[in-house]
């Protein structure tokens, strides 16, 4: 099994997406757990940690690349003499 093999990669993607789906569905159970405390309202809603984790990461990547990167990115020989 090689990680460069497209068939292996497809299997990994499928397995990962199944795990992600199960994790979202786990909220049916988690939200009823006595240890679950929502402190800000929205953090107690269905699927919050899933969409928040994906959303903030997507925003951070896009802002880094297309806002900060656009202004502050230089060739890595910039400081060379």
């Amino acid at each position, binding site marked *: 099994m090689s990680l460069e093999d497209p068939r292996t990669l497809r299997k990994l993607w499928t397995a990962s997406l199944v795990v992600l789906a199960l994790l979202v569905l786990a*909220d049916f159970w988690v939200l009823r757990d006595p240890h679950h405390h929502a402190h800000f309202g929205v953090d107690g809603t269905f699927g919050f940690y899933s969409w928040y984790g994906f959303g*903030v990461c*997507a925003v*951070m990547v*896009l802002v*880094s*690349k297309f806002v900060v*990167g656009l202004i502050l990115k230089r060739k*890595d020989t*910039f400081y060379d003499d």
Partner: protein
Amino acid sequence: MTDAVGLPPPGIILVLGGLVLPLLRGLGPAVALLLPLLTLGAIWGIPDDLTVTMPFMGQYDLTVLAFNPPTKVFATIFAVMAFAGALFAHPITGLDSERGRRWRVELPAAFVYAGSAICVTFAGDILSLFIFWELMAIGSTTVIWSAGTRAAGRAGYRYALVHFVGGVLLMAGILAKVFALQASGVSDPLALHHFFFGAAGFEGLSFGTGDAAAWLILLGILVNAAAPPLGAWLADAYPEASESGTVFLSAFTTKTAVYVLMLLFAGTQLLIYVGLLMAVYGIVYAILENDMRRILAYSIVNQVGFMVCGIGIGTAMALNGAAAHAFAHIVYKALLLMSAGSVLYMTGKRKCTDLGGLYHSMPITMTCGIIGALAISSFPLTSGFVTKSMINQAAADQHIALAWFTLTAASAGVFLHAGIKFPWFVFFQKDSGLRPPDPPWNMRAAMIFFAAVCILLGVPGLYGPLYAILPFPAAAGETLYEPYTVPHVINQLQLLLFSGLAFFALLPVLKRTLTITLDADWFYRRLFPGAWKHLVRPVVLAFREFFDYLFGQLPQMAKDIVYSPPQEARMFKEWGLGGAMVVITGFLFAYLVLGYIAA
């Protein structure tokens, strides 16, 4: 309270022992592994109520050994770190090889640096704290320089300049406060408790906007904590050290700053925002970075941001979280940098664009790197999960929405920028064709040791000893904090794995390029030299005669009129501030050592 005279703080074992190491020749490398263990034994052997004072300049006492609430947890991990670092840096190829010759400079410097950091955690007054704080700067600069490259030489020079400026700010603040205390008739103006500015500190004094001393001290510490824009030195200098030097550097400077902030500024609200800025800044810069060790350097700033934010929140839960997280962070960050250092040592390459596919031939380095990556991401069953969560919990308990939502976003971002990005681009990504074996046994042993610590600290039931040495331990029969609840584990997995999904979904955008991202060091690397070259110098040259008269002849004439110096006075030259700081620190340290011998 027990009082003993003449007993040095445990860190002195490392400082003096480190300096002796090169003289021991063949025995040096073995003794180097022993010294941190002796230091650790001393830290745990000293009774918690012991204080050691020594007279200073006639009328003052220096308290060189005292246990403050966070002393034990920081001193312990500093000593453990010195051991693992010495194991990783072990001159396996012999003292006369290139690596061995470097070891003879780097390891003594690293031990002076680590030992001074331990001495800072034991300092019971502001002056001994400052002396060892500055000695750390000298030790760490030497660690950077010992890499021996031109880039390391220049980066070390910039590093030293920034730290001496930070030291001057800190000293100015200390002096301002000491003079104010003396003016109000305080008999022990050096005592640490006069410098507790934090509103929720261990013995809180409030700190208003008009208190210049507190501001100067805070700025001086924030330079070392690497808070932007004062922290560009970190990502500039750390990746230029050797593969073992960077491992040492990652541990002490920023975490000693966390310790001192915790002691002096706990509950200072401003630190919440400083910490959040650090957490987000680290992620953004790490996402854009191509040098594998610079990615990890930016992620130090990100992680220290969590701790600084916790100190700003200032509750017992938050401060425990910050201290525990510093402990866990030192281990997994050193582990990540050992993994990166092994790759650098075996391949000579440091850019993600040159690496990839190393999982084929470096299984131990990859596995240990991934364990470090899981721990920094706070995966359940790793150390980060039982430590960082306390800071998030404190933000939730205090209903500080901005802090909680930003820290939660930053937790997801950690997995993105360090947890996946580092292992992915180094060990997987594409096949670079490189097939180096795992590094020599000592480097493998150091990695396996720290990987084991990362996992053991995360196992339910095994993190108890760490919780027991936190600044605010649980009362008898009570639980300090319970990280393993079903919602906490599931919510954390949801957050992290969906962050992972974002990484792979956006992989084309994250593809590495041969670029750097400008940081605040641009001001002193480009703007100031450029302004001097193109603006100030031409003006000075154009008005040369006028300036010669103004700064040369005029003062000379004035001097000749009012004062004719005796001949021997001409021996003395004026010194730069940096040089003077080194000399003063050296003298103060020599004074301390002589003090022990005399006592």
